[in-house]
């Protein structure tokens, strides 16, 4: 376990001083992501205009990893077209599941700092919570201002977590 290095400056900075947490935006879509085993949840808000993520924010409680990951994710996808954001999501998931090339890693910008999470199987669910919620929001109702009432969990999505809630 490389915790000493894992809780690095990028992560702690995004956790303690998140850019996009509790920010006021005019969301066109809202979705909740929940990890019942730890009781943590986030609520992700996006403003999608003409196929582009114009703005985004999140609320909620969670560990440093989930909070920082959501913040880095928003930093990365705001201003990008929906399909590009979804591709970045794929790359992020791939980074955690099987690893990616240097090139792909660079595309993830600061979010790439989470690559070692794969060695911490119990925390994968934290790192992917924001991303899975993003995926759901974008594929369920990309242009929709209504809260679909659905929510997402990353505790049984087979992201390679051994044990209980695979």
């Amino acid at each position, binding site marked *: 376990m490389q915790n000493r290095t894992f809780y690095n400056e990028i992560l702690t900075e995004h956790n303690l001083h998140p850019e996009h947490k509790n920010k006021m935006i005019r969301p066109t879509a809202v979705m909740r992501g929940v990890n019942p085993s730890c009781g943590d949840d986030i609520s992700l808000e996006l403003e999608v205009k003409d196929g582009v993520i114009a703005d985004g924010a999140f609320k909620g409680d969670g560990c440093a990893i989930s909070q920082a990951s959501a913040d880095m994710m928003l930093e990365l996808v705001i201003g990008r077209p929906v399909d590009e954001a979804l591709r970045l999501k794929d790359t992020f998931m791939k980074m955690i599941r099987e690893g990616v090339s240097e090139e792909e890693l660079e595309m993830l910008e600061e979010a790439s700092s989470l690559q070692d999470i794969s060695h911490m199987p119990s925390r994968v669910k934290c790192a992917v919570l924001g991303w899975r919620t993003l995926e759901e929001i974008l594929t369920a109702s990309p242009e929709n201002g209504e809260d679909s009432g659905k929510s997402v969990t990353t505790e049984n999505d087979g992201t390679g977590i051994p044990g209980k*809630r695979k």
Partner: protein
Amino acid sequence: MRLNMTEQDVKEIRKDFPFFSGSDAVYLDNSATTQRPKRVMDALLDFYYHKNANPFRGLYPLSWEATEAYEEARRITAEFIGAASSREVIFTRNASESLNLLGFSLGSLLLHEGDEVIVSVAEHHSNMLPWRAAAERQGAALRYLLPDEEGHFSVEELKKLITEKTRIVAMTAMSNVFGELYDTAAFAAAAHEAGAVFVADGAQSVPHTKTDVKKMDCDFLAFSGHKLLSPMGIGVLYGKEEWLEKLPVFMTGGEMIEYVTMDEVSYAELPHRFEAGTVNAGDAVALGEAIRYIRELGQDAMEGRERDLTRIAMEGMKRIPHIRIIGSPDPDDHHGILTFRVEGVHPHDTAEIMAGDGICIRAGHHCAQPLHEYLKINSTNRASLMFYNTEEEIERFLSSLGTVRRRLGYAE
């Protein structure tokens, strides 16, 4: 993987079992419980000495290792019985707990006033009483499937017994009295045709023949580790995922929840929702190791060896006067289980006299008292073999058996 197993091979194999070096008893009660190879117990110790933590509960590496070891045991068990995934494998204490879980949960799911449950009259009490209790709780009726005199069950008879009220058919895949292996797939098909669920008791079949739950097409299968070279604290309930998804939970408590508030509770994913409280990771890991050992020996070789020993034993028994063997006259129907009576001698006396010669066999009803009632025999003796028994041991068994009547005062 061995393709066959000679007497010489077995003498080598027995060195894997510390029990045999410490005892010169002839242990022929393997259907009750088997002995254990050293490597199985070593795996247990390795778990307790190097990976011990409460699985699932901690974030620290040790707890993850414990979780991994436990889940690895589940995966290997799933593979061993041909389950579609390890979500279909629930660890319990023993076959009895597996069957009680079903009695409570499947009973409450499926049985209503006037419904029917069919069990064979040859069931072990552990696959009979839970259904009787379930039927009683739910106001359902119990029907008995009866064998012919040689212990064969017929699918035709089952079909005659099935009505539109039949919800559950529970039947052993191998009788612990007759030793016969039944064609579970055929009985399950008859049940399914009528819309009933088929529960197979694999306590005897899993240790003695290759198991493939897909081929058997049973909806549930129960068995025990301790009859499969493993410790006494672990059993398995296999269930088809679609059924497990519908099944109400049985025991509740730690580990089997997703979240609990003062008013609400939501249960964990399969298979965890059926495993309340701290899991028996140590014994599960040992079961995994036993399965690895069995696969290395080769299940076909084991089964062949048991067939050979059964033939030798049964032919020997047929040569001794006044021995009546229960079940089929064909040794290949017995899979190492030889239930018998010495005419004129009470089975407890037979077992006692043979115990004096160091031969460990059973006397009684072998937890199948209704079968004895049906066969109109008070009690019987049973010798049950395992691949690790030797021809020498069979000889000692036969020569002791041959003296029983004389030692009880009969002229011959």
